């Protein structure tokens, strides 16, 4: 499961990579799902380096989608009383208090004086300069930073939830997003363990599953999703996935040039275990710090192999049965 699988993604497919594949890069998810003239694939780029933790995304999401309130609980997990994504939480802002320097987070990222190409050339070499501004720690204390990040359904290129859904309640939209149809879902729950991120979840009182729709109803009328609309700092950016990926590469290069060596993208890579996320992130630390799996792999990756193995096993069994019948028939004749 830790194999990022970039090599596997290049495995030759009989349909040339445009059919109903379950793994590897897929540049036309809507087309692969049967939309002949689909609009560009839409998604989220959540830039956590500018998130201020206001939770407007959580509230806007619940308001627009009429997601129920799910309990008053003071968790003690910093300012996070939401805890995680679930049937009744489609946007979740994580708060992580760390004893790490604040100053390196984003000291003055100027548009003018950053040579992006130079910075890109130094990516990963660790030679980016540290921020000049660094607050002094009070006696006996290390420095502090407070990470905030708004999590959401990843709308995977290869969505295991969709692949395993027996009723067709989960479907791929023309925007390349993954949506549950509440009037079709029968609450079987197969999709819940299938999600490599633990996003999709059953609502206790009705048993059906619920998750982010990327505001499918808003997209259809040319509006951006409610969370992105409400975000005051553009931490949540909505748009065509190709554009967002370009923007994100540029942003991460700027941050690294400014000394934020830990800045990284998460879920943007089409060759990763889920074929890239439709909703990806810029993080300032390891994914685990934010409660995200480091190397998610679509749980149906091995399904064809499994079917092949199953078919082989079935064939073997059949052959065995036939053989034994033949044998017993032979015995009978004797």
């Amino acid at each position, binding site marked *: 499961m830790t194999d990022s699988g970039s090599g596997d993604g290049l495995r030759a497919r009989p349909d040339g990579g445009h059919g109903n594949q379950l793994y590897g890069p897929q540049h036309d998810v809507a087309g692969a799902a049967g939309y002949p003239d689909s609009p560009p694939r839409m998604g989220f780029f959540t830039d956590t380096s500018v998130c201020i933790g206001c939770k407007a995304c*959580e509230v806007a999401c619940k308001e627009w989608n009429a997601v129920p309130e799910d309990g*008053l609980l003071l968790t003690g997990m910093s300012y996070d009383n939401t805890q995680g994504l679930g049937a009744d939480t489609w946007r979740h802002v994580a708060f992580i208090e760390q004893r790490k320097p604040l*100053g390196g987070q984003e000291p003055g990222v100027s548009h003018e004086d950053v040579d992006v190409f130079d910075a890109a050339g130094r990516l990963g070499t660790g030679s980016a300069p540290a921020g000049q501004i660094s607050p002094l720690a009070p006696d006996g204390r290390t420095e502090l930073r407070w990470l905030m990040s708004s999590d959401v359904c990843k709308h995977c290129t290869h969505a295991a939830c969709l692949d395993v859904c027996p009723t067709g309640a989960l479907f791929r939209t023309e925007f390349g997003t993954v949506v549950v149809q509440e009037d079709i879902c029968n609450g079987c729950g197969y999709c819940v363990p299938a999600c490599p991120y633990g996003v999709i979840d059953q609502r206790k009182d009705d048993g059906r599953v619920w998750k982010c729709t990327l505001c499918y109803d808003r997209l259809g009328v040319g509006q951006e999703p409610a969370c992105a609309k409400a975000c*005051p*700092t553009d931490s949540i950016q909505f748009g065509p996935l190709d554009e967002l990926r370009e923007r994100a590469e540029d942003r991460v290069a700027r941050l690294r040039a400014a000394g934020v060596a830990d800045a990284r993208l998460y879920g943007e890579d089409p060759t990763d275990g889920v074929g890239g996320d439709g909703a990806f992130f810029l993080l300032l630390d390891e994914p685990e710090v934010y409660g995200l799996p480091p190397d998610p792999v679509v749980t149906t990756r091995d399904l064809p192999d499994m079917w092949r193995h199953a078919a082989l096993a079935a064939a073997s069994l059949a052959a065995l049965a036939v053989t034994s019948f033949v044998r017993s028939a032979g015995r009978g004749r004797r």
Partner: protein
Amino acid sequence: MAECHPVGFQWVMEAKARGAKVIHVDPRFTRTSALADVHVPLRAGSDIAFLGGIINHVLQNEKYFRDYVVAYTNAPMILREDFRDTEDLDGVFSGLDPDNRRYDNASWQYEGMEVQAASGERDLEYDKRTTGGGSETEAARGEAHGSGGADIGEGEPERDDTLTHPRCVFQVLKRHYARYTPEAVEQICGVPQDLFRQVCELVTDNSGRERTTAFAYAVGWTQHTVGVQYIRAASVLQSLLGNMGRPGGGILALRGHASIQGSTDIPTLFNLLPGYIPMPHAHKGEGLDEFVQGEAARKGYWGNMRTYLVSLLKAYWGDAATAENDFCFDYLPRLTGSHSAYETAMAQLEGVCKGYFVFGENPAVGNANAKLMRLGMANLDWMVVRDFSLIETATWWKDGPEIETGEMRTEDIGTEVFFLPAAAHTEKDGSFTNTQRMLQWHHKAVEPPGQARSDLWFTYHLGRIIREKLAGSTDPMDAPVLDVTWDYPLKGELAEPDAESVLAEINGRAADGSPLSSYEQLQADGSTACGCWIYCGVYADGVNQSARRRPGTEQNWVAGEWAWAWPANRRILYNRASADPDGKPWSERKALVWWDADEGKWVGHDVPDFKPTKAPDYEPPPDATAAEALSGTDPFIMQADGKAWLYVPSGLTDGPLPTHYEPQDSPFDNLLYPQQRNPVRQLLARHPDNRYQPSGTEPGSDVFPYVATTYRLTEHHTAGGMSRWLPYLAELQPEFFCEISPELAAERGLEHTGWATIVSARGVVEARVLVTDRMAPLTVQGRTLHQVGLPYHWGPNGYSTGDAANELLHLSLDPNTHIQEAKAFAVDIRPGRRPRGPASVRLVREYRARAGIDENTGTEP
């Protein structure tokens, strides 16, 4: 700012993306700190020491913008010989009357001239400036001063442009702040010297000809016994650095509600009329002439006060207002003292105030010393509460804390309480005025549900019914109500008054009824009517200019066609200061407006905040008055001398220069002066439930060893009336909690997510405990100080409930603004839940006894 003004913070993030450095100074590490380049934790209540330290750094290291300071500030003005600074008088200024806790500011004036303030306590000068006449209620005019002093504004103040005269403002300033050293800052604020120097360098490196620095503050600065002086300290600094009237500069007051700026422009304050015209005090024989003579400045735009006031009176009383009857000036109510929110509560306790309207406020949990507020309301005949939900202010009489403790019984309370549901802003038309003085119109999206109605509806129909009941009365007392113009068109089934017709009245009309476009058109002869002179132009050409929504991408960077800003749609006030005395921008990078000699007028990106045709070399004739008396190099046109005031000769009750005093309740002595507290802070009635605590090295002070501060969280709004009832918000911050450091948790045995009991001499509350590195222990005066953070959103009603932090607060107020000191006080904290019923009252009494507190504690001048 990210914590309490997340929508506005997007512009800070925008600035950051362009290379701006963000410094956050706050006792706790907030969501703002998380995005800042530098976070400076400091002791709550020590900001004047901190800002004074930066002022001293600027003066000692000659980091000020000298050309700007000489030309545009009052640095060169020479003060009277009898002025004595805190340096001379052990921490107080000359003119202190300690017995009556007030200053006579006569000695604070410039040599050879008396100056009237542009705002603040202008009535201070009344007796001097008129022939007197005596006040109706001398005792209630707490700020009244002795007679004598200079006559009004004859002559020019003496000045020394070399800034070397020992009595010039600049030298006085330098001496005053000399003791605010980095060492003193470290000792008082708990800010390490290196960190402090880093802040000084960041601010000074980013100020001057080519660069500007902005300050943003909120009630963390205003809610102190020296709140106004906090802002003044920033004003001094920004004026020295040349950061006023220029793009990217200024001091931005972040407001607590969407239209708090609007509520001072068209005031809900007791001491102001619309457009910052002072409310008249009860002087004997004061007519319009005497009022204007007493309150208006000779120079600057306040020299036109009569014009603005007469136009206002015409808007109020229409045809009934004539030159013969002083335009109904006598109809205006008169102040008989300070009638702030807290004095109103005191008057309720005394049985003087019998009725109470509460619109969109929740004093039963949202005001300091919430218990006193409830006791006051329990002494009323009637009260009206208009809100979205049954807030604590509407129900204290049946389920408030005093019912539980047995201090009150419902059957004993005679107050008749009316609850009327209110419409939300989405359910009515109207405007919000933000901190940039920008009016933005909002349109009704849906009709209010059920019986909910707008404030405009309620006020209009209440007035209509009262007028119907008074019709035919010949009692002179009723004349102001019967004569008032009350003729707004009504709309729809609910008979909602047309909000735009109110805006049109505020904007003003010419004699022929056509809308005015500028306050320059207003007349003093009664031919114009204008409800608020600074808003004149918002309805120019009969068009609601505040409803303009032209995108920023379709106009220049000033974006003057988005909504409308007062005055005259200027986006940056005093922007004449963005150009040098010759009228050329100080730098091309920071150009905003400039003098175009060919055209003979001021031009630029913004609307010039200056007479358009007044050349930089204009010198007023000796007999000029009002705006004509300002020279071509006087950018601060509302000031009587056209200058930014580093030193305030008039208008403040508590001193001409910001001075560090300790909060009312403080675990520390004042390290800078023998004077512990602001000597003229406003202390309210010596009520048993309003006891003050011993401070510093006084015996008993160690009973309350921790500094506490109240604040807001992003997820809730003020006293919770708009958020605690909403499940989507309540679930995000479900309970009242206190924030403490791991070190304090260890010291007091407090467990994360467990309960803590917090006690002051006024009350006791319980809160869940959040142990966090974000609360840093500080080293103050050589010892470790822990601070306790208390969000104040909760109360016993609603979906998310909890104790109200304001139960802990005392009533010791800023003497200029009558604002409570909610941001710095002293408490004790201990593990476990608070006692219930009468035992909770006993606990507070025990604490008082242990600290030796009586009615005199903490009341020394």
